[in-house]
């Protein structure tokens, strides 16, 4: 009899949980919709295009299956462009990290006009790429460029150097200008981390007999390892996909020596009017970028 008299709540826990779940779905719906519109739809469209032959001016489309991919992977253009992309990415990334960390260490010290120096250092990063490239092309111009002029005046060279028209100069110049343009990103991230390293650690290390180099390797670097990993990953992805700086500086030349994968995609889509091939290149690039993030994600998961 007692069981019959047991009080029952007006709403069961299951019903409450269902109501909460519904509210949850409603709340994340806007985000899901926007992400679908700006990420999922273009992604699906690209994948769809990559399986077709598409003539860019008319967008006339015919089914091609995997033939675009077959053509890309069996031809030489892709592999050459991939090698070029890797040289550019690794070269400019290494310089960015080197300059970035060095500058952050400098700006973290108690130098005069530190606030001013900190803002000035961000300048290249905020400058529009097209402006920066135009200025650099003037600076490097063989007839009236300041760079050649200064080097000749210093007696380092006799005749102007062809900075962008020959190899390996073109690649080296592009890498250095890329490093100049993007190293402030490294500075910002590293400087922020440096300011959180407890000063007591450096004092303890000084008392323990560590010199300045030992303090850098034993205290500063271990503290920076996390942020450097993240910054290197982000910059690697962005450098890998870098288009405007290289396109404006060399246009991919001389010949195709600085033609990285993004430039190939552009050339396929609008130079050769093969939107399907361009899409296939883009899909392959996306897979490569995904592969780059795997070690980082694995490490992040391992740490948790």
């Amino acid at each position, binding site marked *: 009899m007692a069981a019959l008299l047991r009080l029952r709540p007006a709403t069961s826990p299951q019903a409450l949980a269902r109501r909460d779940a519904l509210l949850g779905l409603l709340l994340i719906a806007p985000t899901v919709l926007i992400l679908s519109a700006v990420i999922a739809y273009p992604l699906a469209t690209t994948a769809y295009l990559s399986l077709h032959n598409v003539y860019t001016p008319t967008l006339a489309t015919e089914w091609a299956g995997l033939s675009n991919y077959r053509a890309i992977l069996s031809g030489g253009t892709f592999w050459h462009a991939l090698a070029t992309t890797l040289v550019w990415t690794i070269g400019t990334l290494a310089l960015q990290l080197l300059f970035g960390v060095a500058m952050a260490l400098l700006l973290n010290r108690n130098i005069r006009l530190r606030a001013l120096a900190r803002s000035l250092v961000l300048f290249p990063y905020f400058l529009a790429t097209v402006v920066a490239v135009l200025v650099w092309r003037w600076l490097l111009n063989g007839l009236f460029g300041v760079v050649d002029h200064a080097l000749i005046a210093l007696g380092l060279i006799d005749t102007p150097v062809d900075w962008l028209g020959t190899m390996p100069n073109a690649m080296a110049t592009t890498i250095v200008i890329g490093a100049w343009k993007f190293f402030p990103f490294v500075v910002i991230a590293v400087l922020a981390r440096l300011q959180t390293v*407890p000063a007591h650690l450096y004092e*303890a*290390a*000084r*008392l*323990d007999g560590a010199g300045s180099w030992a303090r850098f390797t034993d205290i500063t670097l271990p503290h920076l390892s996390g942020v450097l990993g993240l910054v290197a990953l982000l910059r690697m992805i962005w450098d890998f996909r870098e288009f405007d700086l290289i396109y404006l500086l060399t246009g991919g030349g001389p010949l195709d020596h600085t033609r990285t994968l993004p430039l190939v995609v552009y050339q396929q889509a609008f130079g050769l009017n093969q939107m399907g091939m361009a899409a296939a290149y883009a899909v392959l690039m996306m897979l490569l970028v995904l592969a780059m993030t795997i070690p980082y994600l694995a490490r992040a998961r391992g740490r948790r």
Partner: protein
Amino acid sequence: MAEVVFDSVCKQYDDVVAVDALDLTIAPGEMVTMLGPSGCGKSTVLRMLAGLVMPDSGRILIDGNDVGGLTPGERDIAMVFQTYALYPHMTVAQNIAYPLRKRGVARAERMRRVRALAESLQIAPLLDRRPAQLSGGQQQRVALGRAMVRDPSVFLFDEPLSNLDAKLRAHMRGELIELHRRLGRTMIYVTHDQLEAMTMATRIAVMADGALQQYGTPADIYDRPANRFVAGFVGTPAMALIDGALLFQDNRAILGIGGLTVDLGIRRFRDRPVGTWQVTVGIRPEDVTIGNGPFAARISAIEPIGHETILTLEAGTARLCARVAGSSLAAVGETVRFALRQHRLHFFDVVSGRRIDEIGLAVVDGKAM
């Protein structure tokens, strides 16, 4: 064991004088606590000795050698920080071994010494852990281990116990006293906690506003404070400091404070001056006896602590505290009678704040009657 000497050491930060002409000689093997309120310069003194801060002028000598030109690592000094400053990415063993590694001690010898030290500090099971995996007390021991491992001649402690909870703090106080006894090294300990200073030190250096106020044994500091600052700073609850007048008449000294008149007799003042002197009188709570006595006061507050009760009394315009054993049945607002232990009263010059002693008024403050 090492003697540490500060010879008119000065340090200024921008407009603020952190340490003003410090003269202090610390005998070998002492455990000295630098006691003072925040910003009194005590940490700066410690950091100048460590070599982390350079003095503007003056000399610092360790065992007779001027250490001004030596780096912190060359001074044969170890320091324990308030935050412990353990290297977060190194294991406990690597942390303790670090000073040895930087001095080129061979790996096998390093390991042997770290292991022996870990045994004595009871942290041997923790050697492979990282600082983040340790409790505050364990981190404290590791920091001690890192300081002890290279057997320095001077140990510095910068408020090392302030990040621990009360119970652990009391325990670590005992361990540090034991450590000092065992190692016999000169130790200098900065704190703003007078309980730490009184219990641990062989001598206390009380500082305020960058200047050394008094250097002496804990008993000296407590029983014979050199000036009004030391008198008010050391002791809980604080010594009551009441302005009053000393009247010398017919070879007797009569004290008037806040409407009370106390006949001090003639024994205290050797010089037997005449006339009226403005003084500050210091009265410790334990020198006020409640129950009988010539004075009456109203109880304005009662703080029961358990083993004793602190009564705040108002007698005329004077406010003072009294310590009563156990719990008190008195109520706020009641009037009680009390007496003062006259031979335990402290007198300070109203102008300079300096202690007026048996040596005589005229000699101490330089004013002749």
